């Protein structure tokens, strides 16, 4: 059965100047934020900073006092509110599940309301249970017969039932104990890859943010302080508050003892010896990669990526000179250098031959 969604895929979700007040108090203060289709955007900030309020303007559980929300360029006020919400999965921390319904009825409720037949619902529910790694015979259980982690999985399955292209998740793992939380995060990463949809994810756990997020939006007192990729936040925090939140010092405290070679990633599959642009293009397409390290007689000549290559006349023009480190360099100074030069990668070279790549993002994730 096909469900009619308001949008099949998300190009963008745009919050323009969104403001929400409660009396004199401004819970969300002129927030401008663009969520890119396909990404997982983290909303993080202290308690009361307005994360939940902002999130709920996207499915119109909250109507902003000022500003507007656009999905794929269309003002969400144009949509029927029930249809909008059914096109957006919503997962919350607690009490999300209906205690008086079995797992099957919880997951299948929206399917039933959309007019699916019993068999179709049965099939879909089992599919979803499989996806969230729960046994099929859980269908007859009630929420109170499940552990916290299992309830959370059922909540996720329910949100995915209608296959919505956009998911809003408000501290979905917040109530779980730390070990279980780690485990669910890992599983969620796997599910996220399978689903490939756009997700806005609220958390107040910075580790969770770095682990799951593509980009991270930091809120404080109702305002958006900074939005960026993890490395941007660590390397260029907008202010003290962000620096403290991403906790650069702590993350880097064992940096002194580390060498570049400890955290560089393998470069082998990116190395190629070519002379012409079309040759390189063909090679990159064959290998399905977007980045290449060009060598001449084994020695590093330069790096390039698909985008620059397509824009350039010839190979020479597309070549860039990367930051170069040697395996024994201290990681701390390498990172400092990258930050200063605003580079997201460096090539590690030993006797002129590239032996690894240092990716700022990758390094930071490993250090966490």
């Amino acid at each position, binding site marked *: 059965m096909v469900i009619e969604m308001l949008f099949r895929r998300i190009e963008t979700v745009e919050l323009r100047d969104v403001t929400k007040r409660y009396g004199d108090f401004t819970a969300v203060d002129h927030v401008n934020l663009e969520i890119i289709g396909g990404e997982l955007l983290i909303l993080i900030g202290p308690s009361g900073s307005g994360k939940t309020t902002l999130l*709920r303007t996207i*499915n119109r*559980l909250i109507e902003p006092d000022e500003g507007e929300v656009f999905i794929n360029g269309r003002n969400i006020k144009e949509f029927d509110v*029930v*249809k*909008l*919400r*059914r096109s*957006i*999965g*919503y997962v*919350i921390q*607690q*009490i*999300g599940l*209906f*205690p*008086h*319904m079995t797992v099957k009825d919880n997951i299948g*409720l*929206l399917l039933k*309301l959309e007019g699916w037949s019993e068999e179709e619902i049965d099939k879909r529910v089992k599919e979803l249970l499989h996806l969230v790694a729960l046994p099929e015979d859980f269908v007859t259980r*009630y*929420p*109170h017969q499940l552990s916290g982690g299992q309830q959370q999985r059922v909540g996720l399955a*329910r*949100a995915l039932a209608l296959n919505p292209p956009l998911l809003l998740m408000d501290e979905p793992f917040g109530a779980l104990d730390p070990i279980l939380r780690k485990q669910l995060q890992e599983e969620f990463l796997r599910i996220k890859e399978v689903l490939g949809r756009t997700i806005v994810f609220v958390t107040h756990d910075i580790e969770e943010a770095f682990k799951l997020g593509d980009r991270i939006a930091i809120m404080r007192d109702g305002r958006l302080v900074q939005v960026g990729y993890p490395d941007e936040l660590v390397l260029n925090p907008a202010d003290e508050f962000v620096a403290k939140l991403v906790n650069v010092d702590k993350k880097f405290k064992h940096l002194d003892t580390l060498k570049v070679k400890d955290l560089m990633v393998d470069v082998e599959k990116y190395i190629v010896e070519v002379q012409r642009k079309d040759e390189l293009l063909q090679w990159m397409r064959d290998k399905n990669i977007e980045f290449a390290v060009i060598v001449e007689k084994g020695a590093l000549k330069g790096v390039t990526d698909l985008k620059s290559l397509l824009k350039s006349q010839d190979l020479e023009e597309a070549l860039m000179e990367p930051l170069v480190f040697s395996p024994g360099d201290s990681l701390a100074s390498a990172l400092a250098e990258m930050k200063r030069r605003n580079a997201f990668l460096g090539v590690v070279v030993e006797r002129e031959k590239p032996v690894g790549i240092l990716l700022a993002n990758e390094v930071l994730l490993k250090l966490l």
Partner: protein
Amino acid sequence: MVGVERVLGAFGEHLVLTYASLFLSIAVGIPLAILSLKSKRLASFIMGFANLVQAIPSFAVVAIVVPLLGIGFTPAVFAIFLRALLPIVKNTYVGLSEVDEAMIDAARGIGLTEWEIIRYVRFPHAYPAMFAGIKFAAVLANSIAILTAIIGSGGLGSLVFEGLASFNTDKILAGSIPAILMAVFIDISFSYLEKRVTPEGIGGG
């Protein structure tokens, strides 16, 4: 002695009278409770009116119906209906409105319409309170159906009043014992129904 046929006939009338008024109260009471959810003003009006009716002694309610509707079966049904309405409206309304707001919010968030929220979330949670109200209303209806004999409704009440007027103990017992059995039956049957309908995972009972 009172003839068995006479007792059975009276019992039959009593049953029809009790259940007809009870179902009328349910049929009117539940929609009124749902309507009360829509607006606070309407809710306080309906509750106020129902409370007022409740404050009037049963006997007076039965009497007041006469100048309005005359005597006989229909006015009797109306009198019982008025008395049975309040517990149903009030309990159902309380049950429906006391559902955890966070759960309603979750239901709204995943895209249920207001009606679907009432149907799939509020009602299942209101069952215990609603059934308590209906059970109470049924017991009330059963006892008022005896009283209404004085305005010509017939039924077991006629036996009781005739017995009282003529000091005929047999007649009194022939009228009141079935009524007592009825009360017990009502209690058991509604408790059973409630168990069947109320989903697992809902507290109370």
